[in-house]
């Protein structure tokens, strides 16, 4: 007695067809998306790594955006302070001119008027705004930091504070992003606005003009020292930005290591499955139409 063969081969045939179709579908999906992980079940540990990778990429994106925003704000601050330098130099030469003893009192009054104009210009630079906030007010960014005050020795009142804001530009690395206005314009080691006021009074009263000019010179160099912060910080932002770009590239390549489809391998799998599928269909068509003994009984 030989082993009886299962006469109903249809389920076997169908499961063979289904299996190959599934292989074709998987390969097709990988080719279409370019990814080997198209749902979490494709590679559970890979997808967990991908979640972390995407989080790292998006925090890198945020740091890059921070840097972009800071760069534009700091550039505005830097160029405002740069423009102050020309105005200060003008004040210094006016001081020298006023020291000339051959000048008439009318000439000195005219110089004093020009110095008052310069004071106004410096004031408006010190009150520079960007994006609706004052740049040189410490953290009291909604308060106009400098207002004229004739009763004060410096001619102004500082309404800001001495606080410095820090922004994180990379994991665990923060930079200061401002110099408080009083340190820039009213520095005890050389007060810019104070020495301008001193020079104006000196020219108006024609007393102590050389001393006031000296004080202005000293204040000017102190101002240069303080404002160099902005240039240095911009440089630092630039180099951190470059570092972040390379870090992002690295994260992207890590991502593709995890989930990029190996195209050449997928194509091979696909065409193998395709050939097998066609061959199977041909064979099964023949098997299913095989005659039985009944066909030969007349």
């Amino acid at each position, binding site marked *: 007695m030989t082993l009886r063969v299962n006469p109903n081969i249809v389920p076997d045939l169908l499961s063979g067809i289904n299996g190959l179709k599934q292989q074709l579908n998987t390969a097709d999906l990988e080719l279409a998306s370019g990814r080997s992980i198209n749902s979490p079940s494709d590679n559970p540990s890979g997808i*967990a790594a991908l979640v972390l990778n995407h989080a790292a990429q998006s925090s890198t994106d945020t740091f890059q955006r921070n840097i972009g925003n800071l760069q534009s704000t700091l550039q505005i601050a830097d160029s405002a302070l740069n423009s102050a330098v020309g105005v200060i130099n003008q004040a210094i030469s006016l001081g020298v001119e006023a020291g000339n003893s051959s000048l008439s009192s009318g000439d000195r009054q005219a110089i004093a008027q020009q110095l008052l104009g310069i004071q106004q210009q410096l004031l408006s630079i010190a009150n520079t705004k960007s994006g609706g906030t004052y740049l040189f007010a410490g*953290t009291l960014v909604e308060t106009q930091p400098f207002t004229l005050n004739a009763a004060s020795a410096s001619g102004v009142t500082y309404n800001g504070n001495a606080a410095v804001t820090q922004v994180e530009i990379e994991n665990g690395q923060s930079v200061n992003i401002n110099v408080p206005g009083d340190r820039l314009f009213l520095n005890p080691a050389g007060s810019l606005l104070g020495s301008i006021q001193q020079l104006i009074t000196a020219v108006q009263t024609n007393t102590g003009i050389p001393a006031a000019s000296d004080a202005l010179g000293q204040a000017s160099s102190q101002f240069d020292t303080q404002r160099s912060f902005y240039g240095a910080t911009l440089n630092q932002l630039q180099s951190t930005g470059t570092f972040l770009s390379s870090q992002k590239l690295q994260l992207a390549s890590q991502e593709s290591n995890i989930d990029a489809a190996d195209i050449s391998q997928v194509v091979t799998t696909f065409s193998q499955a395709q050939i097998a599928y066609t061959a199977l269909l041909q064979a099964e068509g023949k098997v299913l139409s095989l005659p039985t003994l009944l066909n030969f009984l007349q």
Partner: protein
Amino acid sequence: MCGTCHTTQLSQLVDVQTIPADGTSLTLTTTGGSLLVAGNKSFNLTTQPNPATSVQDVFAQGQDITSSIRGGNLAGEIQLRDREIPSIASSLDTLASGVANAVNTQNTAGFDLNGNQGANIFVPPAGVPGAALNLAVAISDPNLVAASADGTAGNNANATALANLQDQNIVSGRSPIGYYSGIVFQVGNGASNASAALSSEQLLIQQLQNQQNAVSGVSLDEEAANLVQFQNAYSAASRVAAIIASLFQTTINMIGG
């Protein structure tokens, strides 16, 4: 129709055991012993909402058998509904309540743009269960985000602290993103294990069906051969009958002569 087809169909839905009642009938029960078919009577399974969980429980003749169903589609659906999905939902709840509470606590520590002490950003979760479902933002005015640590408008220390929550272990001793990647892993792993189990079970079923069909399947060749055999036997028997008839005829003729 084949006699076992209905049993097979039934066993795809629930776990069935068959007890031969007498020579001609079967009694069908679940493996837990609940009666499904006895003689020519069938007993319906019914569902009723469970007052505690508000999901439907399965009853057999007034008895709750939800937890004793061990196989078939029904057991699969029940396991998915009562164990797999609640476990993932509870992880999401833990994540949502951890993040909401930590963000609220940090925001309350700072000052908003109006200089006031910060308030909750999220509606505080009543508890862990349902936290993900009910997660909602409590404020609509962005000025109420307490970015400042000292009350001045330009201070961002509290905003930085809020951002740094992402790296702190605020969800069940893990960072939010670490915890979330664990959930994704759990889901993916569950699905991948299930489909691996599915294909191996399918192979097993196919093997068993093959074996069953090898014994009981109808082969056309076999039936045709039998047909010829029976036809020949029939012809042979007819020939015998015809010969006997002709013998009788001869004998009768002899008497008549």
